[in-house]
């Protein structure tokens, strides 16, 4: 089931009403059954894979907790292997197979591994990572193995974040299944507002921008410099609105039911550096890699060379997590390289700031940093969006061509849409960035309260009728400005 569908609009109120009407001790079962239904609406048979992973990790976590010495490690490795094998089989087998075949052809070897046309179970990378984090936390002794099988299954399958995250940690989500959530007017309406905003980002902004992006990236040879630049910038906002929209709907849905999911995005395109970007983009994944890959490798408490290596390997793995394609590896690798270079050039940047006489974190320095970071991120998005490395190379090699024909009054024509629509797209991006700048200023002015609380208190200050106008117009806009096309959430494919 997808969030922006009629079936979810019917499913979610039923689940919510049932949840609050049921006695507390039956609620976990209601949520589990609802989550099964949510997942089975996509490809029913794949729930068996999910069930298998749940049984393995549930059992292994208990075995780890009860064992000592080497046995603990053995069970951990067994659990990690089982989860990773499933992930490898569905997600990476075809990629590895194709590439091994190419190598074998070069070396004139006989190579005959069968081709399996498997469809990737939706959200596999998300829930496998959530399961991995649970087993690792139990192994580290930071969390007690969950004895209640149903609750553990619900931890993996909780429908708001089952398909595309946020990737939760056991210590945040698991205890919440034991809490008694009563109907709280402010919490429920807050969640609904978040759902509305998420839908707006997805169906009004992301889907609309995707029309331009898809047209250009699916027909690259027909386009040059200006169109490629516009498409890449549009893609930057498309993927943000698509994924942040999904996350907001997920967080909002969970909030309605009384659950707090972790924040996944924090205005990433206002980041002043690549490291800042990664503290704002897909936070649940970047912190996962930080906690379970980067720090175990030694983090920054090693030699400089080893540190840079740790950064690079973490980013390449993060790229690989996204998909079995060289483009994702290049995307991750490029971000890793950015990160390493930015750390290495820190001294140089400090000197430039001093020579030019800028105060630290002054407006102009921040502005230039934001722009440079955005450009670097967009360069990396080229790999992420391209079908293959050849297409990405085409984009880079044609980026500076065709600028002499540029005319501001016909930009829409360059990307193949009417000028009015193009201006409309630009207005949506400006609106989004304007909101982000406003939020950033508001939240930085009162850090102690927490972001959501700051925004909520600002919202509450508006007169009631103004808020109601916003709600009605917001819902109307989602319903009428949304794009009528089957444009799946980008992160579903991961």
């Amino acid at each position, binding site marked *: 089931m997808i969030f*922006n569908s009629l079936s979810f609009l019917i499913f979610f109120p039923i689940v919510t009403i049932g949840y609050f009407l049921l006695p507390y001790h039956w609620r976990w079962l209601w949520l589990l059954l609802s989550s099964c239904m949510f997942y089975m609406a996509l490809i029913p048979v794949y729930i068996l894979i999910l069930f298998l992973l749940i049984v393995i990790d549930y059992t292994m976590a208990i075995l780890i907790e009860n064992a000592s010495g080497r046995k603990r490690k053995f069970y951990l490795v067994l659990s990690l292997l089982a989860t990773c094998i499933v992930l490898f089989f569905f997600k990476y087998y075809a990629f590895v197979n194709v590439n091994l075949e190419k190598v074998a052809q070069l070396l004139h070897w006989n190579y005959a591994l069968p081709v399996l046309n498997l469809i990737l179970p939706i959200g596999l990378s998300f829930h496998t990572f959530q399961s991995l984090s649970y087993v690792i936390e139990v192994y580290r002794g930071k969390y007690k193995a969950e004895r209640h099988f149903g609750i553990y299954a619900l931890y993996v399958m909780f429908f708001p974040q089952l398909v595309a995250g946020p990737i939760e940690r056991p210590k945040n989500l698991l205890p919440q299944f034991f809490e008694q959530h009563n*109907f709280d*007017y402010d919490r429920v309406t807050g969640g609904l507002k978040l759902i509305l905003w998420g839908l707006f980002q997805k169906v009004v902004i992301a889907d609309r921008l995707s029309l331009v992006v898809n047209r250009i990236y699916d027909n690259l040879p027909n386009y040059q410099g200006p169109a490629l630049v516009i498409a890449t910038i549009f893609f930057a906002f498309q993927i943000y609105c698509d994924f942040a929209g999904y996350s907001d709907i997920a967080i909002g849905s969970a909030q309605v039911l009384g659950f707090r999911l972790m924040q996944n995005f924090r205005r990433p395109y206002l980041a002043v550096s690549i490291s800042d970007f990664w503290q704002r983009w897909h936070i649940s994944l970047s912190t996962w890699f930080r906690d379970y890959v980067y720090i175990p490798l030694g983090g920054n408490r090693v030699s400089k060379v080893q540190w840079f290596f740790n950064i690079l390997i973490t980013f390449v793995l993060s790229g690989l997590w996204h998909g079995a394609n060289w483009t994702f590896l290049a995307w991750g690798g490029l971000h890793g390289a950015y990160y390493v270079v930015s750390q290495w050039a820190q001294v140089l940047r400090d000197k430039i700031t001093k020579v030019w006489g800028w105060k630290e974190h002054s407006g102009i320095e921040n502005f230039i940093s934001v722009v440079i970071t955005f450009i670097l991120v967009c360069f990396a998005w080229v790999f992420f969006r391209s079908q293959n490395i050849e297409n990405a190379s085409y984009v880079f090699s044609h980026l500076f061509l065709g600028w002499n024909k540029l005319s501001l009054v016909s930009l829409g024509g360059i990307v193949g849409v009417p000028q009015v629509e193009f201006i409309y797209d630009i207005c949506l991006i400006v609106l989004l960035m304007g909101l982000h700048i406003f939020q950033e200023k508001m939240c930085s002015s009162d850090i102690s309260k927490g972001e959501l609380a700051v925004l909520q208190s600002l919202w509450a200050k508006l007169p009631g009728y103004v808020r109601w106008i916003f709600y*009605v117009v917001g*819902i109307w806009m989602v319903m*009428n400005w*949304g794009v009528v096309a089957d444009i799946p959430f980008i992160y579903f494919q991961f």
Partner: protein
Amino acid sequence: MTHMKKFFFKSILLVVLVFIVQSLCPGEVVIPNEITRLDSLMQYGADIIYFGDSTTESFTAEDANKASIGALLQMLIPQAQIAKITHPSYQMDVYAAYGRYILRKGYHPKFVIIPINLRSFSPVWDINPSYQFDKEKIVLDVKDTFVMRYLKPLAVFKIFEPNCSQFSYQYTRVFEGKKYLGLVKDLFTPPSSVSPEDVTLRYLQLCYSYSLNYQHRKVRSLLQLVRTLKTAGIKPIFYIAPLDYITVEKYLGSKFRERHIENVQLLHSLLAQEGVPLLDLSNSLDPEFFIWSTVSTEKGHPSEHLFLKGRMFVAMSLAKKTSMNTFFNLGL
């Protein structure tokens, strides 16, 4: 509990407000070209509506004249105005929706011509999510009614998306009688190691191994269409599009012919029960009338697409069938 009540009443109020605003300022859904075309042609008083799929069109550069069967029929009977409503993969349940629309709008063409493409009963068409045309079907059912005001929100929330998924389509099991042949994905897109001959065999098995029965979705749509047109007082003309039966039989053997006869017989008797004749052109043409399709996904597969001489044959058969020679005094 008071919080719940407050929430409940405010929610109702919000829904009512949104409903009012939506009624006053409805968003627009783009109407498919074929429907607007039908409306405008019927306003000019078209005598014949000719529905069609790719089998009515030219599919090769070798054709000097690329006229479709509809266009050729128009040349044969210039006095009659023919409204050609075609789409490469239109099929019976879309035609049934058009039938309901024609009845609802009170259009009164003298004839409606409907081709029956035998491949359209196979899984390749029947359960392929790309060939469901939910948008067309829904728009035909609600166009010019008050529901149109609320169609955009429903469309944004995926009401036009087909019920069947790519997964369920690709993993559908295909049978020849009781013999299991494979999954759709294995027959439609076999691995590259499979020989070209075997690729063709698998494709033909997928297209022609079905056995029709009265419960088949498309057969029920056919029946519904006949009854709708009869209610509207319009004479339907059904014909089975020619197929390259010699080539297909070469691959599938004599069992294909047996099944083909049974399937056509079922269509004949179904329409006969409704008092509607069926023009069976399925076995009328030899292989030289057919193009081995150059449609990318079907490259190298025999299909019902015809060269000009084949299309002309169908057009002439239809002209005769519609008795246009006497009706329009053409002397054909």
